[in-house]
């Protein structure tokens, strides 16, 4: 059964909607989505997957990073209707309290965040980086994580956490 996003309110909208099949954190559903809705707003407002953060809405900060078919993207720059058939993993899909992903554990152990707002994006970005398989050294990880801003300045701890996990997988 297809369920409309944020049902009642969105249903009242006459701007037209496009049936779109998305697999989000392993669950496949077809949704009727307005063409002007970004993947970021769909996740946050439509699905209550608020772990994906909005920090600029312009692809400049990386807080909204999610994995689409295993690749990291800024979800604020992607209209949801363009992702028909895609598999999306958000921070909620990577790991949960009691079942942490290795990156999530490493971030805790290295105190790789303070306010925590950029954190889900950093972690998803780090997973994307690992999937890309090209970063090995500290300099490479720094360079390739530079799309994810952290205003609290946890950068050195973030790199320590990511290198820990890369090291384990190597």
């Amino acid at each position: 059964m297809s369920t409309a996003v944020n049902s009642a309110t969105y249903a009242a909208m006459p701007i037209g909607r496009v049936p779109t099949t998305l697999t989000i954190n392993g669950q496949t559903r077809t949704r009727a989505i307005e063409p002007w809705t970004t993947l970021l707003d769909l996740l946050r407002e439509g699905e209550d997957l608020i772990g994906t953060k909005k920090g600029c809405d312009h692809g400049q900060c990386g807080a909204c990073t999610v994995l689409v078919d295993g690749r990291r993207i800024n979800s604020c720059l992607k209209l949801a209707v363009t992702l028909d058939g895609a598999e999306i993993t958000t921070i909620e899909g990577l790991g949960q309290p009691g079942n942490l992903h290795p990156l999530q554990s490493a971030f805790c152990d290295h105190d790789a965040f303070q306010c925590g707002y950029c954190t889900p994006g950093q972690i998803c970005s780090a997973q994307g980086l690992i999937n890309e398989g090209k970063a090995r050294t500290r300099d490479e990880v720094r360079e390739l994580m530079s799309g994810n801003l952290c205003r609290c300045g946890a950068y050195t701890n973030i790199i320590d956490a990511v290198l820990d996990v890369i090291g384990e997988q190597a």
Partner: protein
Amino acid sequence: MATAAKIGIGSAINRVDGVEKVTGTARYAAEHPVENLLYGYIVEAAIAKGRVLSVDEDAARAVPGVVEVITHLNRPHVAWTDHSYQDEMKIPGSPFRPLYDDRIHFSQQPIALVLAETFEAARYAASLIEIAYETEAHNTDFDVALDDEYVPKKKRSGYVPPKDRGDAAQAFADAPLRVAGDYRLAPEHHNAMEMFGSTVEWHGDGSITVWDKTQGSQGVHAYLASVFGFSKKKVRVLNPYVGGAFGSGLRPQHQVFLAVLAAKMLERSVRVTMTRQQMFSHAYRPQAVQSIALGAETTGKLTAIRNAATTSTSRYEDNMENVVTWGLMNYDCPNADAEYTLAQIDTPTSADMRAPGAATGMTLFEIAIDEMAYAAKVDPLEFRLINYSPIDAMNGTPYTSKALREAFREGAEAFKWSERSAEPRSMREGNELIGWGCATGMWDAQFSKTSASAKLSANGHLEVACATSDIGTGSYTVMTLVAADTLGLPPEQITAKLGDSDLPAAPVEGGSWGAASSGAAVQLACQAVGKKLLKAAGKIAGEPLDGAKIEDVLFEDGCIVLKDTPTVRVPFGDAMRAADLTEIEEEATAAPGFGDMWKGLHKSKNTHSAIFAEVRVDEELGVVRVTRIVDAVAAGRIINPKTARSQILGGVVMGIGMALHEETFSDHRLGRWMNHNFGEYHVPVHADIHDIQVIFVDESDPEVTPLGVKGLGEIGIVGTAAAIANAIYHATGKRVRSLPITIDKILE
């Protein structure tokens, strides 16, 4: 009996709210699910000064899903007096009143709010609103405004006027060595990652719950009650998670006003978030110019300090900072004078941003000190030791503690400062010039009246609560560790609650007073629980503790233990059952002056730091890399070395931004910030940050605050940019007196 290593004050534990943050389950202000929500989108003024003549809303209202457009013309009644709008951190003047009338005081001022059933509809409709203006001449150019600099009549609370000593003018004229110049800091924006947002739940009975991005739930609570005439019981403000703030959330920001205004008018729940561009429509660190003149003997002994600064403020409030006092306090010098003035420009009122005043005034001063060290041909670190003042040289008072000498020593050793070659441009590797610089940092060790409660259940669970905030500072963890320390319980059995205006009273979290103040309050509340526990244990048949007094026992592993006979242990649960108690709840208030604090009453209370920086500068391109920082910090007792280190790392990173990147540019013709986004307002990114080493030097100080804690939120940024500027001089021989030191300034 074998006991696990006690976890308490001084234990490096993981942040207790960490799992929520790494799994995306921590909810920030705009993320609380509320039924039947309306989305508000802010429309901003396109001119810097004038009036709104008309608002054409027709096209916006025609967008499906749009419910209302609120402007000054149709808004419901709100308070009108300045007094009603004055918040906890009020600044002398006339506070900004959103949507109050047709007056425009600054570009990007909110002038309308569009409410719609979806965010997208509100955003689109907002773009269709046409506003006609009557413009008036504006000025946003600080250099022009300097012609009308002035000394404000009314001083802001917390402002410390500088105290002159000796005859600095004469001493400067007579000095064999003289350095004088104007040092500048660009305007900066806080740019926390979470954008300002508020979710207002309208309950239908006239009461509201507000999730707000703020550094103080009770400050916003009082503001909303005052401005909208709510009875205090009808408003609850929550900020359990705050995505950074750095001072921008000390005062209520206009999105919370607009969200509550809309909720009240439409009797619906409302969410308003700012965009990143709109994050430049309020608080910013004031632009500054500081004229520093130093005189010294040829030995490097300072004989004269003259320190005059001007910072920017708005036309409607006098935002004052302590800019000029730091150098006068920190250096032994018989003659010193200082002056501080404001200059008004047509922007929003400038605001506190991480180490307000010191990050500007101490940092710029430390560049001048470096210049004098070179003039005297004395090693910059040695120069600071020659002019070291063990007492507060401005007020003539001792410090409760000042381990800056130790910080210099430990920092220098870790940095290997002794291997530095003295001459500028004398170190290089390939095409990069290498420079080493140092600087001193300084901040206030503050304490603010704070209350907390502690509730112990018979199952051994302890809940401590305080209305303070955790803006990434680690307050949850600090409260947990202090409670664990006081009552001898493992952190897993403790829950810390904060960020709720219903909890025991706390001020806004800022000024680095949070850990010292809420920590002390939690300790007091837990101590009161301990006393009740001991009393309850007296009811146990046979009185195993034999009438012991509180000073005869300690609390360990969930037991009351006799100090003299540690084998005598009464589990908390046994004591509570004997007294027929299911829980013990106590509330306590920590106010300045208790404990040993009275001994420090007439002393100066400050944190200090010694910062060492290495830069590598591409000789042809002028690109600067900060490859190494050592920050040795003297900040009293450290509650959690792990989160404490992160606080300093964060301050240092923002200091690197101040040194090299951060500057908000104005187009003075339009009177508008030009680079109001993350693409053009540059903050440090991963690639900019290399090796940073943090050292906490031993500094025991029972007089400064009850826990001996001095606070860490600000000290990391103070002086960092100076150490980098000084390193750039050492690398290149080029002295840049204005921050940030962008490539053009190095190449020119």
